[in-house]
């Protein structure tokens, strides 16, 4: 029985939640991640196996797809797989067995910290944070960008729900940038 206690990227035992105006920013530690990169010449097989895993076609450039286990595009023939941490703590092993020799799989769960923004007017916050053309971003979009000089993924789940993934070690700076922008914009 594991007897170590995890902390969140912001250093707390519980995830941090901040609300400004109509938007809530929540730290989300309950997510497992694994990266997938198709092996040379195995691209088609890999994306088929991936589709089976997420019960949806493997997402194309700038897209994410799936339900419980979801995938988003991270680069040419590369994806990041997301799943609930509680049920998928060993996601990398699960993905590896699903994809076999068609892809390289790497555990990324604690490489990233996730902040979810929920509420209206999220674009007003994001336009202070990133240079993304938000006109091109809608439900199902994902884009890599730089926020406060921190490399992030921004996922749009709906007009009123976005997820931002940033490197775990920079969680404090990223959180500060997001909350400052919320106060500025809202």
């Amino acid at each position, binding site marked *: *029985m*594991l*007897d*170590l*206690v*995890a*902390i*969140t*990227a912001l*250093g707390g035992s519980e995830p941090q939640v901040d609300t*400004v105006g109509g938007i809530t920013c929540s730290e989300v*530690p309950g997510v497992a991640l694994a*990266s997938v*990169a*198709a*092996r*040379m*010449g195995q691209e088609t097989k890999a994306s088929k196996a991936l589709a089976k895993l997420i019960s949806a076609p493997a997402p194309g450039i700038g897209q994410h797809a799936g339900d419980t286990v979801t995938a988003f595009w991270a680069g040419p023939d*590369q994806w990041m797989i997301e799943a609930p941490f509680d049920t998928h703590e*060993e996601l990398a092993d699960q993905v590896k067995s699903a994809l076999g020799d068609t*892809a*390289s799989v*790497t*555990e*990324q*769960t*604690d*490489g*990233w910290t996730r902040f979810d923004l929920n509420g209206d007017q999220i674009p007003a916050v994001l*336009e*202070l944070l*990133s*240079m*993304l*053309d*938000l*006109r091109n971003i809608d439900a199902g979009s994902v884009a890599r960008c730089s926020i*406060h*000089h*921190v490399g992030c993924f921004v996922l749009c789940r709906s007009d009123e729900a976005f997820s931002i993934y940033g*490197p*775990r*070690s*920079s*969680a*404090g*700076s*990223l959180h*500060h*940038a997001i909350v*400052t*922008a919320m*106060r*500025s914009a809202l």
Partner: protein
Amino acid sequence: MTQNNRLSGGQIDRNTTVNFRFDNRNYTAHPGDTLASALLANDVRLIGRSFKYHRPRGLLTAGSEEPNGIVELRSGNRQEPNTRATTTEMFDGLEAQSQNRWPSLKFDALGVNDLFSNFLSAGFYYKTFMWPTAFWEKVYEPIIRRAAGLGSLSMEADPDEYDKGFRHCDLLIIGAGPSGLMAALTAGRAGADVILADEDFRFGGRLNSETFSVGDQSANDWAAQAVAELSSMPNVRLMARTTVIGAFDHGIYGAVERTGDHVATLPAGKPRQILWRIYTKKALLCAGSTERPIAFENNDRPGIMMASALRTYANRFAATASQRVAIFTNNDDGHRTAADLHAKGVHICAVIDVRKDAPVNYDYEVLSGAQVVNTKGRLGLTFVEVALPDGSTRTLECGALGVSGGWNPNVHLTCHQRGRPVWNDDLAAFVPGSNLPVGLSVAGAANGLMSTYGALQSGAEGAAAALELKDVRPDLPEAEDTPIAQKPFWYVEGCKRAWLDQQNDVTVKDVKLSYQEGFRSVEHLKRYTTLGMATDQGKTSNISALAIMAEVAGKTIPETGTTIFRPPYTPVPISTFAGRMKGQEFHPTRLTPSHYWAKERGAVFVEVGNWLRAQWFPLPGETHWRESVDREVRQTRASVGVCDCTTLGKIDVQGADAADFLNRVYANGFAKLAVRKTRYGLMLREDGMVMDDGTAARLAEDHFVVTTTTANAVNVYRHMEFVRQCLFPDMDVQLISTTESWAQYAVAGPNSRKLLQKIVDPEFDISNDAFPFMGCGNITVCGGLRARLFRISFSGELAFEIAVPSRYGDALMRRLMADGEDFDVVPYGTEALGVMRIEKGHAAGNELNGTTTALNLGLGKMVSKKKDSIGSTLSEREALVEPDVLRLVGIKPVSPEEKVTAGGHLMNTAGPVDAAHDQGYVTSAAYSPILNSNIGLGLLKDGANRMGEKMRLVSPLTDLTVEVEIVSAHFVDPEGERLRA
């Protein structure tokens, strides 16, 4: 004070009265005023003192081109110098101070400079303060800094927030005058994504300043209606109080939005200003034009203003500089000002028109063919002296003089990518040239279309052309469409002190003098006289100076050339460029998984790139860092120490060709590395110099984990992607960084295995036989947590590195400390880490300094000649393999207490101390608590063959000479027995 000079009408809210202070006196104004209009309404003409001569100055303009009316705003740590009163929006509680005067604005001691003006002419800095050289820093500069200057800084940190942001649009329209509004209506109605930005707080541009009609409405009503329609369009974003400051490559524009300058108190968290980067497909410059002055004797007295500014103050702000006004003009537009002011009940003393055929008027006197030859009034205009065509002189008593010399299109942004404006003879002005920033076009007065109808029409056409809208025929309202003919009249003949650049105090005479002294290029003229180099960038003076220079040179203006403009269009506070990136948030900070624990332990942190790493962990009673570091080293070498090494870069390398790939990027071989083994790897640059070092652990046939140094993690990853994508594109290899995923700790010292055995789950055997030196593998710890264990050592001790998922890193560190109590475990920081690696003779960042080869570092044999790897070919260049090349050595002072200084150079015991006799240098130095001696690592010519030699370590800059002995770099455990224990 009452508002004596308040007129009727205007676009101000008379139902609300606000209070403001200028130079510690109270005044009233109305919302809709600027500080400038409010001061005029309150009969304040004297606003400041000039830069060089401290001449009394008032307002010249009503816009952002203002050179004179600059003040300090606010007080305390919010004090902001050099702010233009003409663009400062009025609010209740506004505070402003005049600047560059002492002790008071009306009596300024340095006004004496004005009497010595003959000595302060063009180039006076260069001529006067030439010698003695030593005087420059100590005497001249401080005096000049105090005497000549603009506002003062609070010397306190600005407490306000500033922000940055990014917007995107199909069409950015810069300026919301008639052309900009019409362009926005055209584009907005067609459904395009439009941003309309204007520096003013009220959209409309000149339409707000004029009395004529547009369609069947007054000009400003038409503007208000257009704004109302635009506000209702979801695809149009209106950005008032927003100055587009620069046009950059590929349709990117910089803009400053003053979101909080017009309110007394900013709500918490709200920014004062936002710096926007606007990405555009197309942009349309509708920046209008700026009226230009005529230079004449003493043309800088408070009350002498641009005629169009008088008109703006009267029509838009219902304020006048005086109840008695004269106009001096060379064109019909000056007469329009006279008519408008007259209609508001201001007495027009006369219109002085240089043209012999000036239009006649029966309401007031028009002096045709006349010129203003001098003015009087110490702190404000009282009299104007006019030369009449018959040679006689007439004196007019007036408190304000409106000057109109014609209009210059605002071409500034068209120059930001080195576009040169071209001279237009009909307008006698520069208009945008053909070499515009890509995607930018120009409409309205900025493009030389000076009538209102011309502006409306070209705005509509400009938008349609930019968006390639077909068959768009916007319904243009009827409007004034007077043809414009400008005959230039730059200055009044015979004047001595006629001001061109009022902010930097440059006169007509200075321009002529500079030409006589040989400054023939416009750029030289600017630098010699400082014309156009003040905060207004010469918006009202550059063209006139150029014209005068052309005249003196006997050339045409186009032959003489023109200057071009640089960003920013108007000054931008440094805080605005900084935005949120200030203080602790100047750059993002990276924290290690044990950060919070280390903080609790009172660790001292050091910045390593963006990382914060524990440098040492002081205990109560320790007063010097050396005490802590020595203790950490001793305890680690005696028993066991733990150090957070998460910051080392970790790259996952997978694929069928992974081993082959590592063979290419590392100088040494990896193909034969067994699974569950780790190997030290040396990475070269293609030029043969060492790029980085680290380890690669083979977790499976097709799976390695590579580590890099903390500093090079990003570069190495980029380099490996370059090798993968650009050099060997068909290799089956996949790379991804996993630095952040794993909390990794070095557990070092003779008891490290015993400590780890307490946490490693029992099914994993980590005894020396089962898990030998350089072994690695996946294990579990603390009851099933997945972990990776590497038996590698940087300290020279028996050591391991253990990695667990980052979220458990804090808990694992606490567990290691608790379980290690039996062994007197010690956490150690980067200093102790450094001491131990120097004791062991490991090369690190100081030695991998970009100029060292593997051979220099004593690692020459690692460069395999049997395979192709980056850098191997060029590492064999003759000069890099000569017998006496620098080699890594250990350095020990003959007296152990003597200091070894990194950066110090090694010289033979006898002979000169100079570069020609240099034998090498010290790269790293430390005190070794194990050897009880200072020690160092260094690079010494032919060092491998000089063991035992005595040398001088010198640092001439710090007067240091120490006798040292050259020894092996491996001070501790040279045979490596501890590692393998």
